[in-house]
């Protein structure tokens, strides 16, 4: 437990640094929220076909682990977020991520309509009400043509700083099917945000669906690591050299093991992927970023610095609170044991280097 003055010093640093939080969550909009942004046809569809609560089974945001008891969405969720997080930490900015059932809808046209309406709702009800806020745009990966259209439609609005998808998708994200999305994203300076969660197109494990929600949480790094492997192996970063991908809510410390194994395996298997000219670990350091909460850290906080040393890069970690999920108490938002020398880069410099549209 920190003393009051320690708490004040800790919190002042966020304001002094101009900290930017790369992962905060508004509640997923309900039907009533989206109706104003849907045309007559889609209003009729979502009403008569009962499309209302769009929550992912593998990421149920109204269950206990996703909602700290003192951080509810009751009343005006934006006012709550301001009171609980943005104001007390004096944050310069925060990126809104809607982790919604839109990612899992099967109907590619319904998915496109819901993504578009959600983005309109974000702009109207969140971004325009607080200048500190930015957002990830939802695009239908189920419908690549519509996804590109949505990126082009939003591109002028610089408050959208990223394109969002999930750690567990219908196809591995490196597949060419998705390349038009990456082409548009690269063109407009939008990183691809890969957020924890599954659309359940496939079982989360090699052995099928899990019995418990805790297992769906534990398995997430398998999704992240295989998405990174896919993006590298398929040559996405060769084709789109300015593209970055941000692993959001990944746990962070799974990464060095992937870097070591992939670089070693690549030396023996590279005839299979001749377009991959650099060691995967180098490609990862150039193109992959990770948000800081949750952080799967060692029991001994002295060892936290070592887990970051293993990356051989100070550029990869981006500050996030994962508000309002329940990972820490009070405003102890930084993983304990982060080396002081790296904190300012994590709070701001790395974020600005990753999101060129910030401030634009």
């Amino acid at each position, binding site marked *: 437990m920190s003393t009051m003055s320690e708490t004040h010093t800790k919190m002042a640093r966020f304001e002094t640094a101009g900290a930017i939080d790369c992962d905060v969550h508004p509640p997923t909009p309900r039907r009533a929220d989206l109706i104003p942004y849907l045309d007559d046809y889609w209003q009729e569809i979502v009403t008569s076909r009962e499309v209302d609560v769009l929550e992912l089974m593998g990421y149920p945001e109204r269950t206990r682990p996703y909602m700290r008891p003192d951080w509810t969405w009751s009343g005006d969720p934006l006012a709550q977020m301001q009171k609980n997080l943005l104001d007390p930490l004096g944050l310069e900015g925060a990126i809104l991520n809607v982790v919604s059932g839109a990612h899992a809808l099967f109907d590619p046209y319904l998915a496109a309509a819901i993504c578009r309406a959600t983005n309109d709702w974000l702009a109207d009800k969140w971004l325009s009400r607080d200048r500190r806020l930015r957002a990830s745009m939802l695009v239908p990966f189920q419908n690549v043509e519509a996804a590109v259209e949505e990126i082009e439609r939003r591109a002028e609005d610089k408050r959208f700083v990223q394109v969002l998808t999930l750690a567990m998708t219908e196809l591995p994200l490196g597949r060419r099917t998705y390349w038009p999305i990456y082409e548009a994203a690269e063109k407009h300076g939008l990183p691809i945000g890969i957020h924890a969660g599954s659309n359940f197109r496939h079982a989360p494990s090699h052995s099928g669906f899990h019995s418990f929600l805790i297992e769906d949480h534990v*398995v997430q790094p398998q999704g992240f690591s295989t998405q990174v492997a896919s993006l590298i192996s398929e040559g996405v970063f060769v084709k789109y050299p300015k593209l970055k991908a941000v692993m959001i809510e990944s746990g962070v410390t799974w990464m060095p093991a992937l870097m070591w194994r992939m670089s070693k395996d690549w030396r023996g298997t590279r005839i299979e992927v001749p377009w991959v000219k650099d060691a995967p670990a180098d490609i990862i350091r150039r193109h992959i970023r990770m948000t800081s909460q949750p952080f799967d850290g060692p029991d001994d906080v002295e060892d936290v610095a070592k887990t970051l040393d293993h990356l051989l890069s100070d550029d990869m970690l981006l500050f996030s609170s994962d508000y309002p999920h329940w990972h820490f108490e009070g405003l102890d938002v930084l993983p304990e044991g982060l080396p002081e020398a790296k904190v300012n880069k994590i709070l701001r410099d790395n974020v600005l280097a990753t999101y060129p549209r910030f401030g634009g």
Partner: protein
Amino acid sequence: METPVLERGQEKAQTQGVVDCDVHPAFSRPDQLLDYLPERWKTHVRDFAVRTANPLLGTLPYPRMTPGNGMRRDSWPPNGGPPASDLAFLQQQLLDQCNIDYGILQPLAAGSVAFNQELGAALCAALNDWQIDKFAGPEPRLKASICVPQEDARESVAEIDRRVTDRRFVQIAMPPRTLEPCGRRRYWPIYEAAEHYGLPIGLHTSAFGYRPNTPSGWSSFYLEEHYAASNSLQTVLSSMILEGVFEQFPKLKIVLVEGGFSWLPSLVWRLDREWKRMRDEVPHVKRKPSEYVRENFWYTTQPIEEPENNRHLLDILRWIGTGRLMFSTDYPHWDFDDPRFAFKVPLTQAERSAIFRDNAVDLFGLK
């Protein structure tokens, strides 16, 4: 990027012999296993083939880079036949040259993943006879694994019962890519038998399975598959702990084979962190996951991770502890780890002995 520094040779003199926990025996001809099948199944296999989840009949779904489905190029026996099919050459190239006192056989043929469950059971029995006949019988340094058709727990237990008095078998073998998460109760009779007989269960990564190799579907390349295979071992560990297997079978010993080990610390920190906030969902999990990890799991080392700064491996070893790592070569596969050169970090003599010999001697009762 820091330049890799080689630290070979420091205290490398291994005076006592090594235990190799992952040796792959091979058939001298593709249909050799048929010799060990009853007539009914011999005919069946010839007429209808062995059906598995591999979409290709006769080729690996992720073809390897070297001939023989990914063999060391120098491992072809001078007398003919595929690598690791000729006992004399295996003795010379692996056991003698690498100073290996004991090698644990890990057969990779399709018994445990055959769609036809009865055929699968027959294939497992045939593999068990073949290991003894061609390898563990004539060469006492080689120890066999009881292959079981794990989707049929009753038949698996029957096969364990039939083999357990033959001390040349030192573990039970099943694949990690089970049809359901392997902590589920349908597999518990196998765990009950293993605990009862004091036999470890070795779960070796497999080349294909019932489910996609990533949570986003099938990868395109072997480069992706090779790492993803270790994910199946992570699922074994978390499923068995979170389903409460070790509350029911506290003495059960699980060996995770051919997945490396550098992923383990992060996974264990994650399990503990999630358990702290989610434990009400799994009240049958009485203790911190890391406690079960410490008591019930062992890991073979190959393919050993090679950090760019090789000293980073020392951090991993400190976090895992050297008491549960067991050296393995994966002979005769292309990514073989040679006991004379693997572990490019300085280890104390006690750590070397533990990893290269003592841990396996204790676990498998090799005296």
